[in-house]
């Protein structure tokens, strides 16, 4: 019996780019989604700004909004891109287009990287808008470069995209896909060091926190918040988040089976 093996996931920059353009066109046709992607994080950040505006800061420490707001600049893109990607990929699976794509010359990794590139670009726009409004309108005080904040936000968004692509493999319905958001996102949010500093958690919670990628994203942002120049620790944090993104993408590629029942 001779069965065609799944193709090695070879890469074609041309097909990846065509797929990224296609995904961006789909998003562009959905004006409300575009508006929400660009404006929603800024709006929510404004709510946090108003929440802490009149709460006096502890003398000698950064204001609470500076601390929380900066962290949220990394968390918003992660959450938004996770949700958008997991739904988009689930649609691809349920509408039959995924099966069709797998009969074309498009490689599995081309498809995943196409999604990554499209939503990565969307995340960059989102991060520029959010960081600009945060630092001008809300007076968010960042010690380091705001471009580093944008960079970390985009890497966080890429992590959200990769985990969203992976999570969609385990969802059969959109109801399930939406509920993966609290499953994947909330534990990382609780343990990332924003609510309670990681070194004050119980030992076993620290251990969990240290294997969750969002912890490193938040730590990277805190480094930018505390130092005028990029620190080695920040770059290590960024590398960990990027590595987790690649790992999730590789796992997502492994879940894309060409032959199914």
């Amino acid at each position, binding site marked *: 019996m001779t069965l*065609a093996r799944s193709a090695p996931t070879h890469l074609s920059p*041309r097909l990846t780019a065509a*797929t990224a*353009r296609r995904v961006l066109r789909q998003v562009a046709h959905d004006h409300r989604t575009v508006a929400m992607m660009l404006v929603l994080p800024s709006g929510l950040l404004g709510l946090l700004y108003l929440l802490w505006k009149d709460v006096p800061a502890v003398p000698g420490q950064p204001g609470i909004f500076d601390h929380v707001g900066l962290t949220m600049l990394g968390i918003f893109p992660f959450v938004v891109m996770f949700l958008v990607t997991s739904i988009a990929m689930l649609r691809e699976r349920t*509408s*039959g287009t995924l*099966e069709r794509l797998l009969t*074309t010359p498009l490689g599995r990794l081309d498809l995943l990287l196409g999604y990554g590139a499209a939503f990565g670009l969307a995340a960059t726009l989102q991060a520029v808008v959010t960081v600009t409004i945060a630092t001008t309108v809300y007076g968010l005080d960042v010690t380091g470069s705001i471009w580093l904040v944008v960079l970390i936000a985009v890497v966080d968004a890429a992590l959200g995209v990769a985990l969203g692509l992976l999570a969609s493999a385990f969802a059969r319905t959109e109801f399930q896909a939406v509920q993966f958001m609290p499953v994947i996102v909330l534990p990382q949010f609780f343990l990332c060091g924003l609510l309670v500093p990681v070194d004050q958690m119980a030992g076993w919670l620290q251990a969990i926190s240290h294997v969750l990628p969002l912890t490193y994203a938040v730590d990277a942002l805190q480094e930018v918040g505390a130092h005028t120049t990029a620190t080695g620790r920040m770059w290590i944090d960024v590398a960990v988040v990027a590595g987790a993104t690649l790992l999730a993408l590789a796992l997502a590629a492994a879940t894309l089976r*060409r*032959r199914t029942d």
Partner: protein
Amino acid sequence: MDPAVRVTDLVVDRGPRRVLDKLTFAVAPGQVTGLLGPSGSGKTTLLRALVGVQKVRSGEVTVLGLAAGSPPLRARVGYVTQSPSVYADLSVRENARYFAALYGRGAHEADAAVAAVGLSDAASRLVTGLSGGQKARASLACALVGDPDLLVLDEPTVGLDPVLRVELWDRFHALADSGTTLIVSSHVMDEAARCDRLLLLRDGALLADSTPAELRADTGADDLEEAFLQLIRTRGQEVAA
């Protein structure tokens, strides 16, 4: 001439159920071969095996001389699924251009494919707003755009008005005349008469591998629907005897 498709002892199980049971047949190139059979007979499963997305228990499926689904085939085989698989939130033209890009073709070929299915006037409309028949044609355009050597079509004419159906069948034959091999599934017997060759599938087994004329002659029935019934009855008696 070598067959375009050769299937040998193909067995497919889905869960505990055997969907295809030791199928063996060959499909000649440059012809329209109809895959006929009632709903649930295994037509879609067989077509999925031909394009290499169906898990197969045993047997061989060779397409254009290569194992079905192998990478070099993916630019040469076009597949249209039963329910239209195009992006509802893109326009017809954007869909065609995306699939054109995947097959290494340009915007010109994409527009030609849209015109070929009679959707030029609706090219800039989003697929979500189209009628069922228009969606099916948009989906067909996305396979035609690759100018494949083998075109696998799963019930492409369901829900189309009769005039359009005739037009599409004329197009299928024009493609076959230019050398394309087409395998078209249908559960409508009046479409069987339009095929060069017929595969009749029932309960995962082949009842006939024949031409419409031979089938009429063998069964003595003028009508292919009647001929199909006749075949089922004779097979039933053979099994009982």
